[in-house]
């Protein structure tokens, strides 16, 4: 097992990053360093700028000041090598395509114009679907899949790229238990293969179980580091405005409600 942050160059780094949508900063002065080889989470209340952080790192948003580095270079040069999983709600699933077609889209970039995805691409997509436990649903229309299954299709589309870094925006939001287990199992196995994972996450209860590295964000970066040492009551209270009392203990009943109030 890889020790989080051990001797690996940061795959994601930001330097005093400030992003502004025109109504006050969404992110302010964020200096983040995500070590290679971690299973990392970005955590914070709603509207804290978690998705904004991910999109800035990918160069999808232009920062007002500061900069982001992705795989050690400008995001515009490196982002195509990242396995990006956007929020499931960001697309209209009422689109005429089956699961396998959407996964194959992860390979379009290598094809270029004129060439249609062939047998090799379809087979790789099929393998990725089997990895996320959806081989039997490859021909199902995406609009007829459950939310969790749609999320697994998105994960498979990133898997098929075989990237060294995964950036996932709320991969477990609105997902059934079986899909959650499947997604976490796949991400863990990717991490075991030396890949790095960074996911926006909203459930403080499962945070410690799933992720070994965490960044706490609420417009500014409140804390970052290994989950075990970073996730203190003080850090959480600072991030959520003092409304969470040790939410990261799954053994305590009623904690999920507290976490829900906070977000």
């Amino acid at each position, binding site marked *: 097992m890889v020790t989080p942050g051990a001797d690996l160059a940061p795959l994601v780094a930001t330097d005093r990053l400030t992003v502004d949508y025109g109504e006050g900063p969404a992110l302010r002065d964020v200096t983040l360093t995500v070590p290679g080889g971690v299973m990392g989470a970005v955590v914070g209340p709603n509207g804290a700028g978690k998705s904004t952080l991910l999109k800035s790192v990918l160069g999808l948003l232009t920062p007002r000041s500061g900069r982001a580095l992705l795989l050690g270079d400008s995001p515009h040069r490196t982002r195509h090598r990242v396995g*990006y999983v956007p929020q499931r709600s960001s697309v209209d699933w009422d689109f005429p395509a089956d699961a396998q077609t959407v996964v194959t889209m992860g390979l379009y970039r290598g094809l270029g114009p004129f060439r249609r995805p062939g047998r090799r691409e379809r087979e790789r997509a099929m393998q990725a679907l089997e990895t996320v436990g959806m081989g039997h649903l490859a021909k199902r229309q995406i609009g007829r899949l459950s939310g969790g299954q749609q999320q697994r299709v998105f994960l498979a589309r990133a898997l098929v790229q075989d990237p060294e870094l995964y950036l996932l925006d709320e991969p477990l939001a609105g997902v059934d238990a079986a899909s959650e287990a499947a997604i976490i199992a796949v991400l863990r196995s990717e991490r075991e293969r030396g890949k790095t994972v960074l996911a926006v996450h909203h459930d403080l209860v499962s945070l410690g179980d799933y992720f070994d590295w965490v960044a706490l964000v609420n417009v500014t970066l409140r804390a970052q580091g290994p989950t075990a040492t970073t996730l203190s009551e003080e850090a959480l209270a600072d991030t959520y405005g003092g409304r969470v009392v040790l939410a990261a203990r799954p053994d305590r009943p009623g904690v999920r409600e507290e976490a829900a109030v906070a977000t």
Partner: protein
Amino acid sequence: MPLELDPTVVTVAAGAVLLGLTSGALGTFAVLRRQSLLGDVMSHAALPGVVGGYLVAGTRTLPAMLAGALVTGLAAAALAWTLHRRLRVKSEAALGAALGLGFALGVVLLSYVQRQPGAGSAGLETFLFGQAAATLRSDLVVLMVVAALCLGAVTIFFGELELATFDPTYARARGHSVELYDAALTGLLAVAVVIGLQLVGVVLMSALVVAPAVAARQFARSLRGMFWLAGGTGAACALTGALVSAASPGLATGPVVVLVASVVAGLALLVGPERGRSAEA
């Protein structure tokens, strides 16, 4: 049967098939990208361009009028975009303003031209509701070239267009030039609208773009399938409308085409297996 012999009817039918095929197929992207209203804006705002093209060319020349229509149609789209994005006008209000302005300008220009002496100006008003009989043999070449260019461009870049339509954020993150494909698809929508103006008219043209795609969505299981099914549906509706209207002198073609297309779309919504009522079960 006069249909088999009359070269005018053959020309009209061939023109209708080409227009319906192109507009219907390209309408796939308009419907999936929720740009149906934008198509309506472009078709209404095409009217000043049609008249302007006529004024510049001096006679009723299809390429000049289509080019003019393309210019003013896209200008109206740009106006709506500016109102919405830069001046924060709500999107449907911005689209409505651009549509109204473009169409009003067109009607004023049209009335002005019709008061001028000269034989050629007669018949420009057929661009309001369309007239199948106005299709000339020389127009067919223009229509064929435009249709081949549009459908060819989409076929070549099909994968990129599919990805940019389904998930633009992911496409951008993967380094695809989404802005370029957005612009290209808006341009193709303008072409889809403009190419059918002579047959269907500016007022109802967007229905020929939208209705076949809506019908095709009910049966298609892939974007490629929806694209060609919408094209075929558009061709069939346009052909039916053109033949009915050609057989009844004085009957404008556009309303007939749109009535046929609406019935087809309505039936598809009722019986189509992929979405709608039967898909709920």
